């Protein structure tokens, strides 16, 4: 766990690997120079008791529990800050060490309340365990212990009982060192020292839950878990988080078939033990009363409960009827929220039904061929030692928080220069060597210009309104990083811009600097769904459909016993646009909400309204599902087993722990039934393993992904059969209108979505939508913070409060995509619909345009 800085000295010592020999309690082991004694002991199988040392944080030797005896050294050094030296002989259980351990514990317990029977940590508490193992048995302290108000809320999610705290500094170090949010600190001194936030400034870090897990006592507890269970009542499985596409490894703990807690698993490749609070606390939706529990079919305009058989028949009939009108009368959207197995079943159903109109992304991602086939593809761990990192994508802190931690760590700890190409400042800006802030929607132009400049193509002025000085600085950094594994992170920068050529230009830049690409997607299993063929131009395994009679197509047709349709399929935008014109007979939506989770809400509404037959497979009655003709209740995260694929292409397992509500089924099951009814062949699968085996047989890319290889935290990385090679890039010119504001519509970590909106843990977190504007624009408009303005967009008007934010450049306006703005709508252009649904940012957006602009009007002050 030692720092691996890329300094010349480090390289030298690597060149001549000098190993140190250390003897701990008679066991001799060899370690790298720089290894701490406590780490060497763990390696030698010798546990040295400790509280403050944490393998992912800098040692501070605060708790004094790890004092050991080193031969030929005076005193007892702490094992957590003592580096090993050659021929060191260490004793960890001599009488003197034992005596010191007893004394340290007696002192740590001097003020500790010993309220283990009512403490959440009791039963899994390092202080309790080590007191049992190394403690004195009884205390000589008879004085009254410290008292504090208990508990106090550090934030909406974290509670603190200060009298239990042993001042180990883990939570405060985590907040500062790892999360970069030093919002908690030691205050007062001496006997009164305790951990606290600044008055009225809560510990609102996206990573606050990690402090609870790191706390070696019960001082920090989680609001959602407090008093919910005892550790010995919990059962657990290891799984992969389903909140975003980073794919953090988690432990899912449950009792009586209810998920009660999610903990992080230290996977060096992915999350290094950390989780974001959304991943940690965002599971309560699983047990929400709103979960769908039975299939429903529409009879006389009403959705009524039906048997599985009836619903499956009705869905199959509707799909078959529409299929007679040709492949473009069908549209299949979704899959990125499901397991890869279910996504494969979805892709297969679409093809068996006769269409290539299938898309896992909802018009909110990048080219599917780029996402699966990016080449050469970076892993998350590549970031640690990259020569430079270019981030051209969403605000990672909001959308892929644990990836943000890794990038931040690379920049701050390893000194990797970070270039940020973003339409506005993001959570990473303060760690960036250069922030190339530019006009929204023109990121691709900027990347192409960087690629050109890296190859010494003269550029007179950087495109997209980026600053010439910053551009020059960025060019210097990437030129310096040429051929040294720089990483270009590329993802959709926002939902109000199409970012059409972003994948191509990111690839172009990576090629120009001899670097790697890490494409990022938003939803948890977008990559898995694309690898399973949920894209119009891809077949399972990520091979290109257009490549025709190649081996993969043949293998798939053999596995399916059917020809794969050969027409050119439509992506989500194409399908929804055609549906809005009334040209689609049947839409099959799997975890896809075209009304509340599609960038162009009015188009989505129109599509739903004009499509004759809609099948929705979902976990809640979304506005889209409510308009469907057949609704299937699906099992979701924690309720079904299968594999998922993260942004790196890493395949890991999700494991079922609790039963799905009612008669909900894993999607692959009902899709297999539908496939059987449509093809007239018997259903094939009885478990997710059957699906996996068929997929592995059909898709050559999955051939090496065996069940055994994806068992652990590391999983295995899958590579697309066809790598992505962009065509010649042409950047269509984008006109700028100086009277308008360019819309930046990113997602915030906490939104009002179907899932987060149903987690009580997040209920008290403010998710009010505001529009953010540069201070110059604010004074030009003559408005102050909190005042409502009207955004006049191409599709609709939106009344929303404004807030000054100089991280937004002049001429742009930032609005959160996944939050509800306002429901006023008195003078809306649309009628009926807007009264039905709260106004969302997606109402503003025309997804067919390259960029969206709004005119900002002040509202007449009420007389």
């Amino acid at each position, binding site marked *: 766990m030692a720092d691996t800085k890329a300094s010349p000295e480090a390289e030298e010592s690597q060149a001549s690997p000098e190993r140190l020999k250390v003897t701990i309690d008679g066991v001799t082991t060899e370690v790298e120079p720089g290894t701490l004694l406590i780490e060497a002991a763990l390696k030698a199988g010798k546990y040295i008791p400790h509280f403050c040392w944490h393998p992912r944080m800098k040692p501070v030797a605060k708790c004094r529990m790890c004092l050991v005896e080193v031969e030929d050294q005076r005193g007892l050094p702490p094992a957590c800050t003592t580096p090993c030296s050659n021929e060191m002989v260490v004793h960890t259980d001599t009488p003197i060490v034992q005596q010191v351990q007893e004394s340290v514990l007696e002192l740590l317990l001097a003020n500790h309340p010993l309220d283990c029977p009512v403490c959440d940590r009791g039963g899994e508490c390092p202080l309790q365990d080590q007191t049992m193992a190394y403690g004195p048995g009884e205390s000589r302290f008879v004085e009254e212990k410290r008292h504090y108000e208990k508990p106090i809320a550090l934030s909406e999610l974290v509670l603190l009982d200060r009298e239990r705290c042993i001042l180990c500094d883990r939570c405060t170090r985590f907040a500062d060192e790892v999360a970069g*949010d*030093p*919002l*908690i*600190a*030691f*205050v*007062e*001194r001496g006997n009164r020292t305790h951990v*606290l*936030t*600044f*008055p*009225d*400034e809560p510990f609102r870090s996206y990573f606050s839950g990690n402090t609870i897990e790191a706390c070696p006592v019960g001082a920090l507890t989680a609001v959602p878990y407090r008093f919910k269970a005892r550790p010995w009542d919990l059962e657990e499985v290891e799984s992969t988080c389903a909140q975003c596409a980073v794919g953090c490894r988690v432990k899912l703990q449950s009792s009586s078939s209810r998920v009660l807690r999610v903990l992080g698993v230290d996977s060096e490749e992915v999350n290094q033990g950390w989780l974001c609070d959304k991943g940690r606390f965002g599971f309560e939706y699983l047990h929400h009363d709103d979960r769908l529990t039975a299939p429903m079919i529409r009879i006389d305009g009403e959705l009524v409960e039906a048997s599985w058989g009836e619903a499956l028949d009705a869905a199959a009939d509707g799909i078959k009827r529409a299929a007679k009108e040709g492949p473009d009368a069908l549209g299949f959207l979704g899959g990125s929220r499901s397991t890869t197995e279910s996504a494969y079943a979805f892709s297969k159903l679409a093809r068996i039904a006769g269409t290539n109109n299938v898309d896992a992304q909802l018009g909110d991602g990048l080219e599917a061929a780029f996402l699966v086939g990016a080449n050469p593809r970076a892993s998350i761990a590549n970031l640690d030692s990259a020569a430079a990192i270019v981030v051209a994508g969403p605000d990672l802190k909001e959308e892929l928080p644990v990836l943000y931690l890794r990038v931040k760590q690379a920049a701050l700890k390893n000194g990797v220069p970070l270039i940020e190409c973003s339409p506005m400042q993001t959570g990473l800006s303060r760690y960036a060597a250069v922030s190339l802030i530019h006009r929204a929607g023109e990121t691709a132009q900027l990347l192409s210009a960087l690629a050109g400049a890296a190859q010494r193509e003269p550029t007179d002025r950087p495109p997209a309104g980026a600053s010439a000085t910053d551009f020059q600085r960025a060019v210097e950094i990437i030129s310096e990083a040429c051929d040294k594994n720089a990483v270009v992170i590329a993802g959709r920068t926002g939902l109000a811009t199409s970012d059409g050529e972003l994948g191509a230009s990111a690839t172009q830049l990576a090629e120009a600097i001899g670097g790697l690409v890490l494409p990022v997607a938003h939803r948890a299993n977008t990559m898995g769904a694309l690898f399973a063929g949920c894209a119009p131009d891809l077949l399972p395994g990520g091979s290109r459909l257009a490549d025709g009679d190649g081996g993969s197509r043949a293998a798939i047709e053999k596995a399916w016993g059917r020809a794969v349709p050969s027409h050119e399929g439509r992506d989500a935008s194409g399908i929804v646009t055609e549906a809005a014109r009334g040209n689609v007979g049947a839409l099959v939506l799997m975890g896809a909400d075209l009304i509340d989770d599609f960038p162009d809400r009015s188009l989505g509404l129109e599509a739903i309204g004009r499509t004759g037959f809609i099948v929705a497979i979902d976990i809640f009655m979304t506005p889209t599902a409510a308009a469907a003709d057949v609704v299937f209740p699906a099992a979701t995260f924690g309720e079904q087993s299968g594999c998922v694929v993260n942004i790196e292409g890493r395949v890991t397992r999700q494991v079922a722990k609790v039963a799905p509500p009612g008669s909900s089924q894993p999607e692959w099951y009902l899709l297999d039934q539908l496939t059987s009814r449509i093809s007239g062949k018997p259903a094939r699968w009885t478990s997710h393993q059957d699906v996996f085996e068929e997929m592995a047989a059909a898709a050559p890319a999955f051939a090496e992904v065996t069940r055994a290889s994806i068992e652990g935290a590391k999983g295995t990385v899958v590579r697309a059969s066809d790598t992505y090679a962009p065509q010649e890039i042409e950047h269509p010119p984008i006109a700028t209108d100086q009277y308008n504001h360019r819309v930046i519509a990113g997602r915030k970590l906490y939104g009002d979505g179907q899932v987060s909106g149903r987690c009580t843990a997040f209920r008290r977190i403010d998710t009010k939508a505001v529009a953010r504007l540069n201070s110059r624009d604010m004074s030009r408009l003559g408005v102050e913070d909190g005042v409502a303005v009207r955004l006049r967009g191409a599709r609709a008007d939106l009344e929303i409060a404004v807030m000054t934010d100089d991280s937004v450049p002049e001429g742009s306006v930032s609005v959160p995509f996944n939050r509800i703005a306002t429901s006023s709508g008195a003078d809306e252009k649309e009628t009926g619909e807007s009264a039905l649904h709260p106004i969302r940012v997606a109402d503003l957006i025309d997804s067919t345009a390259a960029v969206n602009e709004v005119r900002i009007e002040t509202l007449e002050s009420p007389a």
Partner: protein
Amino acid sequence: MSFSAENRRIADRIVAQYPQSESAVLPLLHLAQSQDGWLSPDGMREVAEILGLEPAQVFSVASFYTMYLREPAGKKIISVCNNISCMLQGSDELLERIEHRLGSKCGHSTSGGEVYLEEVECLAACGGAPCLQVDGEYFENVTIEAADSIVDSAMRGERPEGGKGLPSDFYSEPLGAPSIPEGLGANEGEGS
């Protein structure tokens, strides 16, 4: 609070003295305290903003040191040394006299919030014992008469005469009216 224009200039000068700006946290806190008479949450917030720190980090530092007063106190602060040299030279009598003159006890502020009186450990001016400070400015060899005039000036909100000069940029002339809210004249808690 927010720093006066003059104090903001002083603050910038202090920050410029350090290779790492966060090293300026202690002097800036003194500056904020001397402007207000106490270290308010807003004062800490402003110091944090100037130094690019989180307020919690500044709070952590401020709460460690007893010389920062985190409760409203009098506009001017008189600190009387009670260590051995001063005691031998009559600091007990001096303190008693000042309490009497102010009409408020040590560790408290006057009822109008003009002056906060505290007893402090060695001020390292034993050669000039008995000594005291008014807003950080040293007054040495303080006689009973001198103490009366120091107290009177302080009560009028003026800088007393006979001092050794404001010690550094860390301190400023107090600004404006007493910050102490009405009814808080008798400040709870032992000073220093």
